[in-house]
Each structure stands twice: as structure tokens, then as C-alpha cells.
């Protein structure tokens, strides 16, 4: 028990000193700008590529909203299909490690 407590303490101390080391290192790569080529695109895809070129902020906000939304829609649809097949989707009987 005492041994484990000592190891726990040592690893905690090590992790606590990490921020100083890592913050001191700082830095990062040179920024690379990627521009979408909209010449071959039409309709929704062209609008999406233009949004990317004009504002990464709006593009990011929309992406962050769309991903969970689409996930929920597809998930609910798959749920509906599985429920229709007759699988119980609300409980799990297996209770063990």
C-alpha cells in the first residue's frame, strides 16, 4: 500500500512539473493557407467552398453545428430501423465485468 502511494505521489509530481516544461517549449509549425478551388463546383458545393475561402470562423461554427445534428438524425433513423426489426433497444440483461 505504501509503495503504491509513493508511486502515485511520484507520478503526480512528475505530471505537475510537465506544464512548466511544455509551456516553456511553446512554438509550432509555420501556418499553411489552403484555398478551395471553386471553379469546377456548382450549387451547394460551390457555396460551401466559398464559405471556406471567405471565413474559416463561419465555416467552423457551421461544421460544429452540423456534425452532431447529422449524427442525431442518422442515429435516430438507424434506431427506428432496429426497433422496427424487433430488437429491444432500452435494456441490457448482461451484468458482469
Amino acid at each position, binding site marked *: *500500500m505504501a509503495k*503504491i*502511494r509513493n508511486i*502515485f505521489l511520484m*507520478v*503526480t509530481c512528475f*505530471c505537475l512539473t*510537465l*506544464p512548466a*516544461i*511544455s*509551456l516553456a*517549449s*511553446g*512554438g*509550432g*509549425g509555420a501556418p*499553411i*493557407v*489552403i484555398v*478551395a*478551388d*471553386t471553379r*469546377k*463546383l456548382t450549387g451547394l*458545393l*460551390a457555396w*460551401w*467552398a466559398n464559405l*471556406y475561402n471567405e471565413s*474559416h*470562423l463561419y*465555416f*467552423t461554427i457551421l*461544421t*460544429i453545428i*452540423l*456534425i*452532431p445534428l*447529422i*449524427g*442525431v438524425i*442518422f*442515429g435516430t433513423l*438507424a*434506431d427506428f430501423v*432496429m426497433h422496427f*426489426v*424487433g*430488437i*429491444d*433497444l*432500452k*435494456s*441490457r*440483461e*448482461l*451484468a*458482469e*465485468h
Partner: protein
Amino acid sequence: MDWLYILMPIAGVKIFWPGLIILGIGVGVIGGFFGMGGAWMVTPGLNILGFPMAFAIGTDIAHMAGKSLISTMRHGKFGNVDYKLGFIMLFGTIAGFEIGAQMVMWLERIGNVEIVVRWIYLFLLTFIAWLVFHDVSKRKAKDRAAKAAGREVDALATGVEWHKTLHKIKIPPMVHLKEAGVYCSAWLPIFVSFFTGWLAGILGIGGGLIRMPSLIYLVGCPTHVAVGTDLFEVMISGLYGAGSYTAKGRVELVAAIIMLVGAAVGAQVGAVATKYIKGYGIRVAFGLAVIGCATSIVLKMITQWYPATKGILDPVSTVLILALVFGMALYITLKMVAGAKREIAAKKARA
């Protein structure tokens, strides 16, 4: 056959879209079953389909966020997600991840980043694989001993019991994690999440591969709860990562959405399959996945030591990963179908 290809508006490459759906289904099944994002499987897959590496990582993380949300919803309904544990771990994960990422920058400046990362990753995967199979063999030994004594072994019995020792550390505040059935110091999940987040930050992965076994062996969660809670973590970190990569212009949302079509079905299949497979069955399959991942890394390392083998071993590594993905996805799907058939037949018999 031009209709089978779609022009990606941001990356500017034409991609075989059915390939994206198939990849989505494969990693969706595995992710929903094991509770991980599966970046190590998706990134080479996207690369093969023709994505530039810069977009492959960002697109993978974006689809991972949506996929984990679907799996978390399903596992939540089965009672497999300990939200309290998930929220506690979130702080440690984010702090650890950021520090790990900063350390990579530091290692990059020294010039050793790739070697260090590959060795840490390999050591870690070997350790996890050993831990899983050591646990399984210990549990089997307990089973045999109980049978020899004419008893039945407790369903909640485990092979490796490190968590029991860690639960004896009573540093306040103490927390009761209802779904996980664990009473421990709040510092234990915080410390575990910080450590796993730090490793994930250094390795540049989502962290499910490390967090899932940590939840089982260090925090003491039952396998199903570890899977569900880990997916909750992957969902949050996936959304954070998707935001971060999108802001840097490295996400191809069209591809992520196409993958989500397949992943939505796959994630449901994987999550529902946990209903029919015992906790130790999940652990064994997880151990095999870890071995596959480790083998692909060894192959990559060999190509660095002997560049002449690159032409042969790089494709071998990619084929190995993809074969593993589809082999496992198929196995899990078959188990799920067999379980569902039994359940439906039993329902009909009762009616």
C-alpha cells in the same frame, strides 16, 4: 462510372464515395463495440481513398464526433454511460491532452518527435495487449479453481484487480459513481484521465485505445460501462478536435457526412452487439485489435530502419489495418445478428 466519384469541395480531389460509406460502417461497428474513435484505422483508409494526409486526420476527427454521439446515445439507453465519471474525466483529459500536444512541439524542435512517439506507442500497445490477456488468463484460472471446488465464480469477478488497491486510496473528495458501481477518490479518475489525455496528446490520437482499458483496470468500471463512458469522452474530444481542425481549414465536411451515413448504421450495430457479448468477450476482441495496431506500427518502424522495404511493407501495413477493420466488423456484426435473432425468437415464444 463517373457517378461513383464525388469532387471534394475543399480538398479538390475526386473520391470514390461508396468507399467512404464502407469505411464508415467498418469503423462505426468497431467504435460502437470497443468505445474508441479508431483514428488509427480511419486515417490510412482515407489516405488510400485519395485524401491528402492533412485532410485525412481532420475529416476523421469530424466524423468521429458524430459517430461517437450516435454510439453514446445508444449506450446511454443501455445504462452503459456513467455521465458523472465522464464529466469528472473531461477536465483531466483536456488538460492532459493540451500538455501532451505542447510536448510534441517541444520534441519537434529537438528533432526526435517521430521516434519517441512511435516507441511510446509501441510500448503502450504491447503493455495493453499483455494486460488484457493476462487478465483473461487470470480470470480463467479463477473459473477453473471455482469449478474444482464445486462453486460458480461470481459474475463480477475479474482477473486483474489493480482497481481494488487504488480504491483504498481515500484522498477526499470521495465520489460514488452509480453506473460504474465504484466508490473512490475523485482524484483517481482525474489522475487517470490526465495521464491518458497526456499520452493521447503526445501520440496524436483520440485516446480511446488507452482510456478504455484504463477505465477497466485502474478505475474499476465493468467492461460495458467502460465502453459507453469512453465513447462519451471521445464524443466531446472529437467535437473539440473537429472545431480545432476546421478552424485550421483541415476538415472536408462532405466526406465526413458521407462517412457518417455508414457510421450511423455501424455504430448502432456495434453498440447493440455489446448487449449479446459478455464483458470478457469484448476484452479479448479488444486485445486482438491492439495487437493488430501494434503490428502495423512495427511494420512502419521497419521501413524507417530499412528504407528499401518501404515499397513492400507500407502497403502490407495498410492492408493489414483494413483487413483487421473489416474482419472485426464482420465478426461483431455476425454476433449481433445471431444475438438479435435469439432475442426475437425468445420474444415470439413468450407471446
